């Protein structure tokens, strides 16, 4: 048995390595192709190295405009969803109240509903009420699908917290608002930050739901790419994707570094 074990582990390790290579293959392609000078309109086969795309990341005005729209939608949706979802998580993980089971059930429903169904149901709602499709309807939808993710992420992070710390603060003469600011909020902040980042990422990447309710005037970045993918795939798409990827990795690294540092220094 002792002979077989390292062999077994090695196979498992090789499998894991293989899966990571597979997971990262497209990412490597995106980064490499941001330095490609495409022969035609499609930046999908290698032609020759260039720095030109990085020098002019915003040359394609319609893509830049779409990116700005996506960032605006994501900013508003992420902010509202994080506040609403965070408050819901606070209520469900901290209080015992009638209807809590129902609230938790309704919170999970959007996660088990396919995007295509959510998109089409919102389409019928706005259509039936004569609401014109555009930026507002997109933001409403993005808040909706981020909300459950935020609430459940924060819930998972604060599960098992000792809320009696709040009582301790109150016993020591703190006001409720001050207790929230100095005790509760710092406790839930890491969960809120993670949820906020997640909902920003979800919002900026959504295509299916958005395509239903964006109308003719509003175009998000994923919509722009998808609508044009039969006629062009400019290298600027790869540049912007690479830039966003490195911003996300940096944020993650900063978060990890802060955690390590906090754990290393004794309080």
């Amino acid at each position, binding site marked *: 048995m002792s002979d077989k074990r390292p062999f077994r582990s090695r196979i498992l390790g090789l499998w894991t390595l293989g899966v990571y290579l597979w997971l990262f293959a*497209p990412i490597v392609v995106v980064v490499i192709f941001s330095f490609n000078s495409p022969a035609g309109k499609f930046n999908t086969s290698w032609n020759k190295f260039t720095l030109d795309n990085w020098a002019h990341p915003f040359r394609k005005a319609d893509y830049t405009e779409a990116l700005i729209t996506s960032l605006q939608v994501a900013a508003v949706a992420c902010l509202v969803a994080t506040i609403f979802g965070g*408050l819901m998580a606070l*209520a469900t993980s901290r*209080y015992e*109240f009638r209807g809590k089971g129902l609230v938790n059930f309704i919170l999970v429903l959007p996660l088990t509903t396919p995007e*295509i169904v959510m998109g089409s149901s919102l389409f019928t709602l706005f259509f039936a009420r004569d609401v014109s499709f555009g930026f507002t309807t997109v933001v409403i939808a993005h808040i909706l699908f981020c909300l459950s993710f935020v609430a459940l992420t924060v819930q998972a992070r604060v599960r098992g917290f000792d809320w009696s710390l709040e009582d301790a603060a109150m016993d020591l003469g703190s006001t409720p608002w001050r207790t929230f600011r100095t005790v509760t909020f710092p406790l839930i902040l890491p969960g809120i930050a993670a949820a906020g980042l997640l909902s920003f990422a979800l919002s900026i990447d959504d295509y299916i739901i958005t395509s239903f309710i964006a109308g003719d005037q509003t175009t998000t970045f994923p919509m722009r790419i998808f609508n044009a993918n039969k006629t062009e795939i400019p290298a600027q798409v790869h540049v912007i994707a690479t830039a966003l990827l490195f911003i996300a990795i940096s944020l993650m690294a900063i978060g990890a570094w802060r955690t390590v540092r906090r754990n290393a220094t004794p309080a």
Partner: protein
Amino acid sequence: MAGESSLRKGRKAPYALIGPGMLWLILFFLVPMWTLLRIALSEKPNAFLPDYELTWRWANFSDAISRFQPELIRSFTYAGVATILCILIGYPLAYFVAFKAGRFRALLLGLIMVPFFTSFLIRTIAWQTILGQDGPALGVLKALSLVSVTDAIGLTSNGAFLNTPQAVIGGLTYNFVAFMILPIYVSLEKIDPRLMEAARDLYSTPAAAFRKVVLPLSLPGVFAGTLLTFIPAAGDYINAELLGNVKTGMIGSQISKLFLKESNYPEAAALSFIFMAIITVGVLVYAKILGTEELSA
């Protein structure tokens, strides 16, 4: 159970906290589902007017089923195969990260998330590059003269990766595998290592210990992962559109086309509703088979 005992009984505060979020979920999730059902049972009395009338026309449902049966079956087949592949690929990886990664655990866990910071669409376009006629995947196969072999085992069709059902399933597997890995990892990580030691002390072989201790305890993760991959995979049509051909169309693109191009709202809504009903029933049956008591833990 420190959390349990310090839970507060709230009169007004919890309702005030859930208020805005619940309002949003009711107005923009529950109410639209109702509107969807209403439109699915309506018809257009006059082709030139934008109005719809609720006539309880159940035929919309049967029409939609008979017209789009191939796409429905295809969507569930592709999503099912992709989900099984996600388990086969993801479980060993989650196991390695949970038990064998040592001090690299946090790093490896973080690395799973990194590809998902690049847009879904752009990753799929990158697969077009990798799998394309002059891409690296076929290049390697051609250099090794293995194309006839991969054709024979069904990995490629007529010497091509792209525009095949295999490519669509591969894309679905790739795009949703993280949703399988993370829940399995979470359930594996919770397992007390002493349980495995106990199995070993009682002369269990590693295989038996895995089958009788680790696997049953990780089933809730597999269950959650299956839902989180199967549901979005069945509804997805981006992979089918970018990596497939005219014969690989999935139900999502039909629903989208009916709504946005053909403006056939009743049939589109009916199709959307049928799709969700099948998924809901499937989830309930699946939960029943796996045993809900075990899973609620």
